[in-house]
């Protein structure tokens, strides 16, 4: 008889804890041993003893948290390379969320749980594509778990941004993007659409982008928006963190069109209340259809929901005979677009 994952994978105040391996996955506070799914700060906290993650995640984490704060020791693990920790087999699989993001596949005594972290099933050029892994328990996010959230193709949103540039050729188009993931994704989408003019970045964005570059990604001509003069920014695309697009920083821009790239932009009222003039529905999370399709694809009889709109997803699971459980993890969804404040 295979042990049910709830007997060996438990919710503790520190986060999700795999008892036989004695390690935490994305713990909310410093622990001796942590597996980190990706480098967003609500998943990658400082001060752990040993950290296991992809090489990309370790590099991003280290740049964000500072040398020595992203784990006393770090071990890089490639996608699909299993390791054994006290009899628990651990494999990382791509999550498609940001560079280096991984699902953690845990197997113990014939039972398998997948902790997916944050994920996006649709392929993106800036990170490895999500792979569904059949399992007994699938641990999922539910950031956009309402049927009103259906992300349109990102290429169409980029086309809207470019059309706006065409209608308002004098105005600076400032796009609010999260520093890790969204920034690089938007640049990559712009390049893929044929936009080859320089793109200007707020000072908070280059560090993460450099790490992407060090892993072989090319973003074309990126320039700092901080030193470029106002004249050069006329009719240019400027990327900046969401908090900066309407604050003092944005005053250097020429009559800006304020855009924001986020899954939350699907709902007009959200966009209006933020004073966004050009909402772009570009998300690095699964939308409603993708959440449900993923749950079907992994075929798990039980789904655990970490954060977001748990009740709707659990309701939808129940309708097709899948048992849903809300984990109420502490400290999740405090960064990236999982929070409405940030994006």
């Amino acid at each position: 008889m295979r042990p049910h994952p709830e007997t060996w994978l438990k919710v503790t105040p520190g986060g999700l804890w795999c008892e036989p391996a004695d390690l935490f996955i994305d713990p909310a506070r410093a622990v001796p041993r942590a597996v980190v799914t990706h480098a967003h700060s609500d998943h990658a906290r400082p001060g752990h003893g040993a950290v296991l993650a992809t090489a990309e995640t370790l590099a991003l984490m280290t740049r964000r948290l500072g040398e020595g704060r992203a784990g006393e020791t770090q071990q890089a693990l490639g996608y699909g390379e299993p390791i054994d920790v006290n009899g628990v087999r651990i494999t990382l699989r791509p999550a498609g969320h940001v560079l280096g993001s991984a699902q953690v596949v845990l197997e113990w005594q014939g039972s398998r749980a997948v902790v997916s972290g944050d994920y996006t099933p649709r392929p993106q050029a800036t990170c490895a594509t999500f792979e569904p892994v059949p399992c007994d328990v699938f641990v999922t996010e539910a950031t956009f778990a309402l049927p009103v959230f259906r992300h349109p193709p990102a290429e169409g949103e980029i086309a809207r941004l470019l059309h706006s540039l065409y209608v308002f050729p004098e105005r600076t188009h400032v796009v609010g993007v999260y520093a890790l993931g969204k920034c690089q994704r938007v640049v990559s989408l712009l390049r893929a659409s044929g936009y080859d003019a320089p793109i200007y970045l707020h000072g908070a964005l280059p560090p993460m982008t450099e790490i992407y570059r060090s892993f072989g990604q090319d973003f074309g001509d990126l320039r700092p928006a901080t030193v470029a003069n106002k004249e050069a920014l006329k009719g240019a695309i400027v990327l900046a963190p969401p908090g900066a697009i309407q604050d003092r920083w944005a005053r250097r821009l020429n009559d800006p069109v304020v855009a924001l790239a986020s899954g939350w932009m699907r709902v007009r009222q959200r966009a209006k209340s933020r004073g966004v003039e050009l909402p772009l529905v570009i998300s690095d999370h699964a939308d409603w259809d993708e959440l449900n399709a993923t749950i079907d694809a992994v075929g798990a009889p039980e789904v655990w929901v970490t954060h977001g709109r748990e009740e709707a997803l659990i309701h939808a699971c129940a309708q097709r005979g899948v048992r849903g459980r809300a984990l109420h993890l502490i400290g999740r969804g405090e960064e990236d677009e999982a929070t409405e404040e940030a994006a």
Partner: protein
Amino acid sequence: MKAFAALLERLVFTPARSTKLALLRDWIATQPDPDRGIGLAAITGELSFSTAKAGLIRALAAERTDPVLFAWSYDYVGDLAETVSLIWPARAGVNAAPPSLAAVAEALATAAKADLPGLVAGWLDALDASSRVALLKLITGGLRVGVSARLAKVALAEHFARPVDEIEEAWPAVDPPYLPLFRWLEGAGPQPRAADAPVLRPLMLANPLEEGELAVLDPASYRAEWKWDGIRVQLVATRLGQRIWSRGGEDITRAFPEVAGAMEGLHAVLDGELLVIRNGVVAPFSDLQQRLNRKSVGPKLLRDYPCAVRLYDILFEGEEDLRGLPFDARRARLEAWIDRFRPERMDLSALVPFASWDELSRLRDGAREAAIEGLMLKRADSPYLAGRPKGPWFKWKRDPLTIDAVLMYAQRGHGKRSSFYSDYTFGLWRADGELVPVGKAYFGFTDQELAWLDRWIRNNTVNRFGPVREVEKALVLEIAFDAAQLSTRHKSGVALRFPRISRIRSDKPAAEADALDTLLRLVENRPDRPSGSAVAVREGAWPRRST
């Protein structure tokens, strides 16, 4: 439909008028007929369909979605049309082409009620989410994108480089999708004309009187009138109908049915001030405000805030254009016209007799009545000219009142000012030592002062509530305003007319700011205020309406 949806989406999120105009110009330049005209009619509210309502849309959604998920989604989104458009499940195998705007408008206007649910559901299946919301807003009539008919006309004028007045004149002669109008604007046809249509004529506006300008003007060649604090309107009554036009070119006829009713049977174009007038006494602007920005009015508002128009000028009598006549001659025609027709809800703006500028200046200083903003000076020989010609007409506003108030809260502005704290709530001291808010001001300062205020606010914040910051009660602002009126809408019981920041008094300690009592003594409509202190016009200079 997709292009229309994209336009709506941009308009919804755009507060700036200039941006809205650019978007409309782009629409006019790029869309084919008849979509172009139908789109303009839809966003300006000239197109409405009575057959499809919210209930139908709700029922369609209920057929296609899980009720629990729909309820949660509606809770989250907060708008029915938007919820339905976002939640609408794609139907496998649907490959109908999305309908054009013209096809939707045509079908909505002609379809039988029983066919509507199937028709709308079919469209929803064929459209993407943003087009679905456009469709649903179109059929429920709640576009709310902040574009008036006037703005659309201005966009047409800008795009085709024609004076907006010509478009205004042609407009009543065409219906959506306005094909003859576009033909004319594109140089392929004559200007559409509706003979005798009640169209707006360009207004003549006055310049503010600058310091020292009086010295060079001859008092004998000018006439003076009180400048009433209502809204400037043009009344146009012809055989084809009656219109009340605002100064900005908005048709506000429906909001003032009693005035429109009084225009029936008349044939003239008149210039005047729309006011709330009770028993011949003009009420403060705050009373008129109750009647503004409404599509229609109920009997209670009509009874409590009765409106009338104080006439300044006559532009047409019958079909005779009087605009070329000198002011004195038009004035004589206006007086004779009033005498002859004795219209309801209209009276004559009296001339204020004076022999010298000094005398007029004293009369102006004495005018503290809330409904008087100051004086108008009009040269006796001035024809009625479009726009704001320099010289013939001046407005001579009375000096503002001022108080020293303490800054309490600041809010972020909009558009260009969205990164600045530019809306200021200020208060005065009550006898018990509490500071109570008395008003809000968001202009009067220079860009440098705004930057200074913004910095001060960021450095002295004690509390944040979303876009609002509560600040240290430490900064005194000198507030200028035109009048103070009693109001039940404010905690302090007082409302200010045209409050603006006149000076930043960083030299003055907050404790030395004015007391609420000081402001209360300036209130115009205080019941205990002796009426003898009001202006001379109350006693005699003001002719009662001839009835």
